Structures are given as C-alpha cells and as structure tokens.
C-alpha cells in the first residue's frame, strides 16, 4: 500500500514538473541551529528571550495576520503573516499552547515579509506574530477561538 501511494505520488509529481528526488539529495544538516530552548519554553516571554534575545515587543499596524476568527478544528489552523517591513525573521507564537513558540522563519535578503502555514492550537488563544526588522521586534495579535483542540486529542 505504501509503495503504491509512493508510486502514485511520483507520477503525479512528475506531471506537475516536480523532480521528486526523495532522499537522494541529503540536505546539509544544520541541526545545531534549531533553537531547542526557545521551543521548550513554557511562556511567551521565555520563548522570545531564548529565540531573539529579548521579549520587548512594539505593536505594529504594519503586520497583518490572516487566520480564522473561529477555528473548528484546532489541529489545522491556517495562518498567514505578512508585512511590508524588511523582515529578518517572522515567528509565530500561540500564547496558550503548552510550548508557545510554534514556528520561526529566517528570511533571506530577497525574501518578502510573507509566510503562510498551518498550525495546531490547543485552545482559544492569542496568535502573536513577531517580526524582527532592523534589530527591533514588532508584533501583532489576533485571537482565534478553537472549538476542538489540536493538542493531546
């Protein structure tokens, strides 16, 4: 069954013009860079201190968070963060998750201030987008109501 889905995926991928080189090109491991301490932190401030060196946020109207007001399924909450600032990094913090820091993106010099992904939320909570720009942290908040949690099942 697994082999079948793999083959199917490869064919579909080929049609999309995708070179599915699964496992052949091993990416260079940069695991040391993974900020374990920040991801293990239990509070928003601790996580930001560990990740970015400060938890000093200034609210900015220039950061847009696109996320649902009410998420029926906390396991899959689509979120898009965009900003017109020259962003060095964008981090997503979910205040009431067991470990608040959900994900963090380091952006290259040509990369626009835009990331979109899907996250899990344990319960109704604030989503905080933290944008690092010019050595300062800017943030925006949005509350998402969760009717079924995505952590712990």
């Amino acid at each position, binding site marked *: 069954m697994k082999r079948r889905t793999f083959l199917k995926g490869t064919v579909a991928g080929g049609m999309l013009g995708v070179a599915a080189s699964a496992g052949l090109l091993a990416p260079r491991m940069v695991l040391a860079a993974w900020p374990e301490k920040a991801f293990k932190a239990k509070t928003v401030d601790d996580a930001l201190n560990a990740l970015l060196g400060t938890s000093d946020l200034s609210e900015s109207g220039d950061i847009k968070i696109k996320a649902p007001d009410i998420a029926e399924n906390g396991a899959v909450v689509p979120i898009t963060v965009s900003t017109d600032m020259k962003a060095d990094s964008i981090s997503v913090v979910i205040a009431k998750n067991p470990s608040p820091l959900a994900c963090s993106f380091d952006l290259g010099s040509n990369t626009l201030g835009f990331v979109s992904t899907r996250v899990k939320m344990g319960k109704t909570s604030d989503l905080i987008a933290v944008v690092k720009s010019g050595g300062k942290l800017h943030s925006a908040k949005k509350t998402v109501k969760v009717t079924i949690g995505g952590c*712990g099942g």
Partner: protein
Amino acid sequence: MAKKKIRIRAKLKGDVAEVKALMSHPMETGLRKNKKTGKKIPAHFIKEVICEHKGNKVLVANWSVAVSKNPYLSFKFKGAAKGDMVKISWSDNKGSTASAEAKIG
C-alpha cells in the same frame, strides 16, 4: 520512503516568485496517547526546513510540534527568473531528511 515526499509549486508573478509546498509528515506532538495502550506516542516532527534558490537560502524555517500534520508552507521572494529551480529540504527530530526541487513556472 513513502513518507518522504515534498510537493512544490512555484510561480512567477511579476518579479516575485511565489512558492507553495506541501510535505507529508505525521508531526506527532508527543502529547497524544495511544487510546488502546494508554502509552504516549513519541514526538516525531520536522525541525528544520531549508528553501534554496541558486544556492542561496531564501527561507529557513524552524518548526516545533505545533505545526500541523502534513505541513503546508508558502513564501515569496524576489530575484528569480522563469525556469530557475527552487529546492526545499527538511529534517526531522529522528534524523530523517527529504528534499525536492521544482522549476519556477
């Protein structure tokens, strides 16, 4: 091997390339319990995703277990031309890795 899959779509709009990627991965939190045995299902998640264009890292994502199962990722960058390749690779907490390349259309 079936799990090591990344699907990428990259499109050029004006001077901005928009990349969308879908990876298949269980993204287990380590908090969930197996209902039959009551034992915790160990955490298994993608830690790092690296997106490259012409050898430059355009985006490095550090993820925790709070990213949803079968993660979706989208981002935009400048300086790409039609026909350029975008490479995305991930590595997870169990040391597995995968990578894929796609042409910007």
